[in-house]
């Protein structure tokens, strides 16, 4: 333990703690901007400077570790003046169009400006000008709002190990960009969207489809169907002041109905389809000695990563589409038939916690008989903006249920939203199918939790199998390397592109660096999903009566020709960007 004094308060902290952590542990806040716990600890924004007695110049509290007997002042008048100057200098080269910025109200730079009472622009002069990159179907980059904190660079490089972006040029022309300043669309970006989650300003944002969706809702001849992913319901409330992880399913459904959607469905049902198909495919592969290990394909960021980095191993990927694509295909075939509506008159909208789903929906092969499975994908954040636009008082809403005939979903579908969930749901169905009876074992706790790679050994129908769950693309790369080397001794792998799974997806409400360092957002949201699962009466996908009915009436059986037509897809190797 190290003893020091912070703001006249004697404190004791563990050795190796930074001044910032020591202060925060003792209830003293120091403003930060570039700091992102465990991800970007570089001290380049200079916002967190503090005065250390006997030291020339100010110390950077986010990277400076504590020393015995240190006397630290975090809020002396000199410090406050220096911090204000730093903020003024950052603002001098920031396009201050807050009124039209998507991050207004949830911007860390704006919050600091309020905190420091910025009333005028102190330093006016030349501003850097960058072109806006909106070529990709998922991410828009506006580097006129970038403050060069490098949080996105660190996330891309250290967390996901992709390294699609980095700092280019020098001095005043410095800019975060890609190799040769190409569009993000043309480099190795997987559209996981983690960079957006880490951006303190509005420099990175999703490609919005709000206006398009409103247009469709206005058009009375279009039958607009919306589906919401499992992870959306446990995060949407955060945008309306609910604690992190609050399940606002009922209010969300009411809001969507009030906005004018003709049908509101639950992607959890789509997840149940995915499980039916995926568990069947897995059993088939095991029985027929097909390509093993089989890897899940629910995460489009991961699929793009595999297509670019491991084109020889694409056979390992399950041919199943992701749940919302499956559900979109079912809506435009089964539901269209049942309701007597022409498929081209239906518009399917997916509310997703994901940025890459926007890209997935735009993939060429995601259509059946010329009908796009999903027309528009909007993120949790976009939905919250639409609810505000529609002047709906979200907190005052009554609860309501998803629409029939596909409203009922299982607990297995709900846990799709967290890492390990797809695996657990698939194991529940596969175990029952292989044993030929209704097993009581439901919870596979070995595949739960925050670890990036989770390994488990199980027995399914008397057959020993090994499974692996990986989340985050850096962990995905480790698993793929094992498969490539031939050291993989497991049969079933679940991979999610975002660390922590969909609950931490790139389309979820953005949490400030301070909240991210103080609470485990992933755990709160994931726990909420597990409690939805526990509260469900049906917890296995194959027991879902809606699913059983659709298989009976329409799809015949899992893996049938018809199921392949609507619910399966294929992958093509994509060229990696070589310099």
């Amino acid at each position: 333990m190290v003893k020091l004094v912070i703001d006249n308060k004697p404190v004791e902290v563990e050795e190796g703690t930074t001044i910032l952590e020591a202060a925060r542990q003792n209830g003293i806040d120091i403003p930060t901007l570039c700091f992102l716990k465990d991800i970007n600890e570089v001290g380049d924004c200079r916002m967190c400077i503090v005065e250390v007695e006997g030291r020339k110049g100010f110390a950077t509290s986010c990277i400076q570790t504590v020393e015995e007997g240190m006397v630290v002042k975090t809020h002396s008048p000199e410090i406050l003046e220096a911090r204000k100057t730093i903020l003024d200098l950052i603002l001098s080269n920031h396009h201050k169009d807050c009124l039209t910025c998507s991050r207004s109200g949830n911007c860390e730079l704006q919050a600091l400006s309020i905190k420091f009472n910025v009333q005028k622009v102190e330093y006016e002069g030349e501003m850097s000008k960058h072109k806006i990159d909106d070529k990709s179907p998922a991410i828009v980059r506006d580097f006129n709002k970038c403050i060069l904190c490098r949080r996105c660079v660190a996330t891309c490089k250290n967390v996901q190990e992709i390294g699609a972006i980095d700092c280019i040029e020098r001095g005043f022309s410095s800019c975060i960009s890609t190799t040769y300043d190409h569009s993000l669309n043309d480099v190795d970006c997987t559209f996981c969207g983690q960079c957006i989650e880490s951006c303190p300003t509005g420099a990175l944002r999703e490609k919005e489809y709000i206006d398009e969706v409103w247009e469709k809702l206005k058009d009375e001849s279009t039958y607009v169907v919306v589906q919401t992913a499992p992870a959306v319901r446990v995060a949407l409330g955060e945008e309306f002041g609910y604690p992190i992880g609050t399940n606002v399913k009922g209010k969300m459904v009411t809001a969507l109905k009030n906005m004018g959607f003709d049908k509101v469905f639950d992607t959890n049902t789509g997840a149940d389809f995915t499980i039916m198909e995926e568990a069947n495919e897995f059993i088939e592969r095991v029985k027929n000695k097909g390509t093993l290990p089989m890897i899940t394909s629910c995460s489009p960021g991961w699929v793009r990563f595999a297509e670019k980095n491991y084109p020889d191993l694409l056979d390992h990927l399950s041919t199943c589409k992701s749940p919302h694509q499956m559900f979109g295909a079912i809506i435009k075939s089964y539901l269209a038939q049942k309701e007597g509506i022409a498929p081209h008159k239906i518009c399917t909208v997916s509310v997703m916690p994901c940025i890459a789903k926007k890209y997935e929906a735009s993939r060429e092969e995601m259509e059946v008989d010329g009908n796009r499975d999903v027309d528009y994908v909007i993120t949790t954040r976009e939905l919250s903006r639409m609810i505000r636009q529609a002047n709906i008082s979200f907190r005052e809403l009554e609860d309501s249920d998803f629409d029939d005939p596909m409203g009922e979903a299982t607990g297995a579908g709900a846990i799709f939203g967290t890492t390990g969930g797809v695996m657990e749901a698939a194991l529940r169905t596969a175990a029952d199918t292989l044993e030929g009876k209704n097993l009581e074992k439901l919870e596979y706790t070995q595949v739960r939790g925050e670890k990036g790679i989770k390994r488990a050994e199980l027995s399914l129908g008397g057959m020993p199998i090994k499974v692996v769950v990986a989340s985050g693309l850096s962990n995905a790369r480790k698993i793929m390397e094992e498969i490539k080397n031939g050291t993989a001794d497991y049969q079933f792998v679940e991979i999610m592109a975002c660390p922590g799974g969909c609950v931490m997806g790139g389309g979820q409400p953005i949490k400030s660096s301070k909240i991210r360092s103080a609470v485990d957002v992933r755990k709160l949201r994931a726990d909420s999903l597990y409690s939805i699962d526990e509260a469900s009466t049906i917890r296995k996908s194959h027991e879902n009566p809606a699913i059983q009915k659709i298989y009976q009436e329409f799809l015949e059986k899992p893996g049938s020709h018809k199921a392949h037509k609507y619910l399966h897809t294929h992958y093509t190797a994509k060229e990696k960007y070589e310099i």
Partner: protein
Amino acid sequence: MNGKAEPDDLNKLERLANNIKKSAICGLGQTAPNPVLSTLKYFREEYVEHVSYNKCRAGYCRALCNLVINPEKCRGCGICKRNCPVGAISGEVKMPHEINQKICIKCGTCADKCPFHAIEKQTI
């Protein structure tokens, strides 16, 4: 430098330099403000002249000087007229030339080219 500074800007410059010096992370950042701080200390009156009287005694700040042709030295050779990128110079051959201040961009090309050193900086 462009003649738009106000008296309080000198204090602002000093504060800015001091703050950068104390809060920069690297040695370059910590020393970059030194030239500004030391000139402010030893040549403050020149700064004050710039700000308060729009005067640059070194004739270096373009906004505070005009380029004029000394008619006594000018032989009317026309080199300056031919080299002026904005066509600001007029005059008959062998007669003293003249610079139109409204057109002149103060690039200094004429002064560099004049073989007789007839072009001089004149404070405004």
